[in-house]
């Protein structure tokens, strides 16, 4: 059971030392600073396209949205336009809410047995809160890093940094002073959220039961990314100019691997490379998959507008004629209308036999 998260943790620790020792001890800066990142990006892009096009190749034979509200039917009944979207526009709104606000997860409830015999379902918001915090802080962290990949740094990245660093958090004591360079909230939120999501998996028995190593691994990896990042920014410090020259070298195809940035940096970069390369082959593809989920991204006007099934093949059916042929006599006797008149078969004898045996 525990082997799942132990193996995942072990894998991340090993990855850390591979990069740290590789760059620090063996000086394999070109490998960890240039080759592996390039390789990771190529694998990510190719894998991403392969996976999504694989989904695109599969047919959508039926329109099977999950309706989460009143349908559009009679004109005087108020339909729920978002949760039971009748038009493409409404589907777009539903999808935006799903992708950007995790609307379905927002509904989450927790079942418990109360007063001995009452099943109750309470609103359970924490998973939603931390999931949202996790994804958005990760997004901000990624976008902020564009400052290292662009020259000049576009204004919206600078704006984002301003907003992210709005709270000037500085710790000023004689023994410890930190907060310079300015603290970005997103990094701390990311670390907190990923810790919550990890602990939830490890501590709750139900979660531990359903979790695979593939669930722990990305969490440990992202924890490692956030942790090494925060470590470098606020504690061990690195020469940012050198780091940027490496990053700029990558995106302008003039790769360099300057000195002066230590093992932690290469571990950070290696973690990110691993995450990128791992992405298309893992559950992380939910990022793209959520857009294609047929229970969410289709209109619910299934009786109003016909949906085509590309592989709708003919099937054997039991026709009315076959049915009437079998039951004609009984139908006529019961006064039911028939298409072909009933004629008694000539061998009445065998018929009687059949009757008596029945």
């Amino acid at each position, binding site marked *: 059971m525990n082997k799942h998260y132990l193996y995942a943790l072990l894998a991340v620790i090993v990855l850390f030392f591979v990069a740290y020792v590789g760059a620090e001890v063996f000086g394999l800066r070109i490998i960890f600073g240039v080759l592996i990142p390039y390789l990771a990006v190529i694998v990510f*892009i190719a894998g*991403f*396209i392969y996976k*999504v*096009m694989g*989904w*695109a190749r599969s047919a*959508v034979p039926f329109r099977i949205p999950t309706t989460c509200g009143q349908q559009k039917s009679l004109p005087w009944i108020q339909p729920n336009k978002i949760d039971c979207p009748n038009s493409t526009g409404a589907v777009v709104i539903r999808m935006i809410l799903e992708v950007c606000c995790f609307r379905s997860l927002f509904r989450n409830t927790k079942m418990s047995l109360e007063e001995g015999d009452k099943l109750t379902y309470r609103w359970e918001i924490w998973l939603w809160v931390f999931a949202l915090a996790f994804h958005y802080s990760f997004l901000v962290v990624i976008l902020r890093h*564009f*400052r*290292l*990949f*662009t*020259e*000049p*740094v*576009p204004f919206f*990245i*600078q704006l984002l*940094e*301003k907003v992210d660093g709005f709270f000037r958090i*500085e710790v*000023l004591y*004689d023994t410890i*002073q*930190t*907060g*310079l*360079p300015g603290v970005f909230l997103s990094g701390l939120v990311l670390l907190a959220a990923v810790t919550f999501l990890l602990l939830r998996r490890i501590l709750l028995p139900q979660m531990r039961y359903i979790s695979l190593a593939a669930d722990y691994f990305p969490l440990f990896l992202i924890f490692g990314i956030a942790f090494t990042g925060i470590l470098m920014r606020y504690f061990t*410090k*690195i*020469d*940012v*100019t*050198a780091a*940027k*020259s490496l*990053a*700029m070298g990558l*995106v*302008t195809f*003039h790769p360099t691997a*300057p000195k*002066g940035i230590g093992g932690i940096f290469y571990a950070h970069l290696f973690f990110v490379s691993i995450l990128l390369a791992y992405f298309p082959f893992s559950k992380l593809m939910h990022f*793209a998959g959520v*857009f*294609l989920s047929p229970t969410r991204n289709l209109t619910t006007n299934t009786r109003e507008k016909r*949906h*085509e099934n*590309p592989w709708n093949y003919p099937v054997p059916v039991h026709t009315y004629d076959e049915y009437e042929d079998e039951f004609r006599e009984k139908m006529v006797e019961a006064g039911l209308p028939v298409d072909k008149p009933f004629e008694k078969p000539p061998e009445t004898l065998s018929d009687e036999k059949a009757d008596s045996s029945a």
Partner: protein
Amino acid sequence: MNDKKWIIAGIVVFLAIFAFPFWYNMGKAAPAPEVKLTEKAKAAKQCVMPTEYMRAEHMQLLDVWRHNVVRNAEREFVNTEGKTFNMSLSNTCMDCHANKADFCDKCHDYASVDPYCWDCHLDRSKENE
């Protein structure tokens, strides 16, 4: 239902955003700025601490200096080699590095860093000009 074109469009949009740094910097060579030293700084050979340390940790050092001066009224900084300095941005740092635009700003701009030193401290290099 033919939604392939939408899916491909989606992939293209995503990859365009993902590859933003590649096309944004296209055709630009943006080498890291070289720090320009004044004659005085060149002559001093070494800052208050070794260059490697200063490159990565100068903001931390300044933070400690500010704290010690403002909160503890201490003015003296003794470095690892036993040399003593007056803890002052304007009078010690900027004494050598009088060229703020070339010394400070170039790297700060490059790394998109906006230090708040100059919210209070005057940039004397401008006065000199």
